[in-house]
């Protein structure tokens, strides 16, 4: 139970972090897409998904330690 709660907290923090990084990528990519033809909408969407996932994984690895320290 305790572990499940900890995991849920970690997942929450990681998701927020991932969304923030993903949003940053999306905004920057959208800007690039508007300026250059080589940058398609698909690039932006897929890139955002990849960034979201990678940031989520990093968050899941980093946040437990951070939360533990704060406790």
């Amino acid at each position: 139970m305790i572990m499940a709660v900890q995991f849920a907290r970690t997942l929450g923090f990681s998701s927020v972090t991932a969304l923030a990084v993903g949003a940053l990528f999306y905004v920057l990519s959208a800007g690039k897409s508007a300026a250059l033809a080589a940058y398609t909408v698909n690039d932006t969407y897929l890139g955002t998904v990849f960034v979201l996932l990678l940031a989520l994984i990093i968050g899941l690895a980093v946040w437990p330690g951070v939360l533990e320290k704060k406790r």
Partner: protein
Amino acid sequence: MEDVRIKVEGMTCQHCQMRVHDTIAALDGVTMVNVDIEAGEVVVSYDSSMIDIEEIKQAVRDADYQVVEEEETCPVPTLDGVKLMTEGIASKPVEAEAKDEAPRPKTAQSPPPKTELFPPGRTGKTTISVTGMTCASCVQNIEKGLGTLPGVIKAVVNLTTEKAVVEYDPAQVGPEQFTKTITDLGYGVVGESVTLHITGMTCASCVQNIERGLGKLDGVLKVSVNLTTEKGTVEFDPGRITVQDIIKAVTDIGYGAEEIKGVDVDREREAREKEILSQKRNLILALILAVPVSVGEMGQNIAPLVNAIPGIMGFLGNDYFQFIFATLVMLLPGRQFFTGAYKGLKHGATDMNLLIAAGTGSAYLISTASVFLDLGAGFEHKYFGTAVMLIAFIVLGRYLEANSRGKTSEAIKKLMGLQARTARIVVDKTEREVPIEDVKPGDIVVVRPGEKLPVDGTVIEGRSALDESMLTGESIPVEKNVGDEVIGATINKTGSFKYRATRVGADTALAQIIKLVEDAQTSKAPIQRIADIVAGHFIVTVMSIALVAFFYWYFIGFERLDIETNYGIASPFLAALLIAITVLVIACPCAVGLATPIAVMVGTGKGAENGILIKGGEALETAQKLDTIVFDKTGTLTRGEPQLTDVVPAGGVSEDTVLMLAAVAEKGSEHPLGEAIVKGAAARGIDIPNGQDFNAIAGHGVQVTYEGSRVLLGTRKFMTDNGMDPAPLNNSMEAMENDGKTAMLIAKDNEIMGVIAVADTLKEHSAEAVEYLQEMGITTVMITGDNRLTAEAIARQVGIDRVLAEVLPQDKAAEVKKLQAEGAKVAMVGDGINDAPALMQADIGIALGSGTDVAMESAQIVLIKDDLRDVVSSIELSKRTMGKIKQGLFWAFAYNTAGIPLALGVFGPYLIAPALAALFMAMSSVSVTANALLLKRFKLKRQEAV
């Protein structure tokens, strides 16, 4: 400004160390923090006007560590009554001669500050065989997972031996939680196995009854009962059921059962073989599936090669064919990475599975998406081949690594293989061949020429020569007569003999050596901890680098390097993705985690094969730093028993006459000097008649009547008191005494007949060993309770640099301490109980196998052979092993240091393909392992030279 030293409990790793450090350092008023994890202490400098000690302690408590108040801290263990074993946990009374020295054991297992809470003897320690670990991060994950359980004092995980050693408080935690934690983290635990001798079975139904009955028990994994051998093997989860529960269950069913104790590594070998087989299957499957996909992906680039088969390229390059085959690779050989990553991530644990899963998963997903969705320009090319080849290469690496790891434990396997399977014992005056497990202490064992001795014992009839080379490395057979001790696993070369079994099963010398070597191989060298920490943080760092690289190549690099023109990749996403994947794959730190444990395993194994038992990585690491070696004199440098050395006749009589008269005087004497004279005479074939009226004058000599004459043997004063003048023989006597010998005058009817001398003689290789050590630049010191004259004489003979004479047994440790205070890294070589404190005080204690159990328990290195040249060999072995560790770490870090920038595209237009990165990464582990295995070919030259 004040300084305070605080005892802190619960720090188990570098993370704890950092956490405690950071917690205290963050407090206002704290100016300096120094955390000593080994000692469990924190030294804090603080401004008392800004913060007080209680606030600092509270901060430590808030960080989930316990502060031990000074009165609670455990006393340093002493030899005064109780001595800590080398393991640092178990304790037993020792008849220590030394009372006033309290050296602190300096092994990594030094008692933690928790000793007050977990007093010696009440702590638990369990070893768990873990499967599924692939790199140093796995080690970190498990250590961290176990370390966070309340009641766990210390958890040490070894990647190479695949074992976790957990020290814990049984009142708070137990093996069940350990097993659960490890499996929750995504790793496997090999169950324990017990072999029972089951009585009362009469038919196959009995077998069924027992198997069914035990099979129902919670925690029993597998049962196999054999009616003929009356044995049952039960594999069980020690966290859920104990051996006692199993035995009780058998007796409840109506049969008798007792545990057969002995050495059993079959299970672990099976687990290792299973792992190798599993990776082999994965590899074959991955190659069968990956090659066509990869060929299809390469398309027209290799078309000329496959044009021989019309239409093949069209088939292999078909998107749906590629998708199906790639999916199979992901689901079958690749599944291990995804399940491992998922299980680990659930607990915030990261390992190489995550890197591989992220890398291959991304390539697979984007390719799958482009097969079924119209992603537009730039997404025509699929990367299934990249994903599957990544899997194939990494599985290849794992397969090679599993094979190599198997080779590192060959020393243990060799030792295991030495054990005899059966024994011939005398039962009711007839000889019966029985399984070795059935031999009990007290049984009479019969051994014929060429046979292997099944257990340890004492010869009671017959004589022979035994080949003990398998245990001692000494190739010359050793003569054994009635009363001599024999060791199981040695080979009888010549005659038949009978001996009484004294130690069987797990108590035999061989079993204990195996245990010692296994323990040593599980322990960690201090250098490994650093590597583990680095590797543990590496994964997240690499993931972050990959993310940054993705951003860079997406937004900047794609345009700057004109990827579309130069590499034909039209999509900036795909270009950045491939580089991110390459970074993820190339940076795996498995070689970093493997470098140290493999070298330690091979080094300790090599030592064991040559009769040098090194009790762990720390001893191995410290031994190469030694610059001073202190030798105990008696029993270590010398044989420890006086021998006849000189016979100088006077007045025209022969040497034999002088010796005969002296032997007559000492015949029947129990004094070591007297025994030496009698033995010396007998060795020269002199017949020793009996004397009469034997009279010993304490401190002077003996008087006896022989053939009516009065024979005196003793000191100068003894002769002077009896009216004789010893002056004519004074020169001879002084020369002998200057050589450390005990000289005695012999007189018959008030006429001095000559001088004889006895002395404790040097062991055969003492001088040679000292010479080698000096060649290596090591200072040699002799420590003895003898007077300076005798001590210096012995030192001259052996070539020792420095003599510490007239040292009381209890002061030996203090003398070692003084040398350490001079800045020396000291090894103490000894054999006696009274050497134990000094052995523990020294940086490295080296005990001779011929010595006492106490000495061997106190030492970090045990030399099975009574040969001091092995001191040299152990230092050489230590240096070689550390050399291999350093080489391994260097290359492992070098691979990553070179690989990551290469993958990042730092070197301009030269980008590395993801599949090549996988091969690069796999080869780094294999090459580091192979380099460590070269240590097996290292010859202990000092011995070979002789």
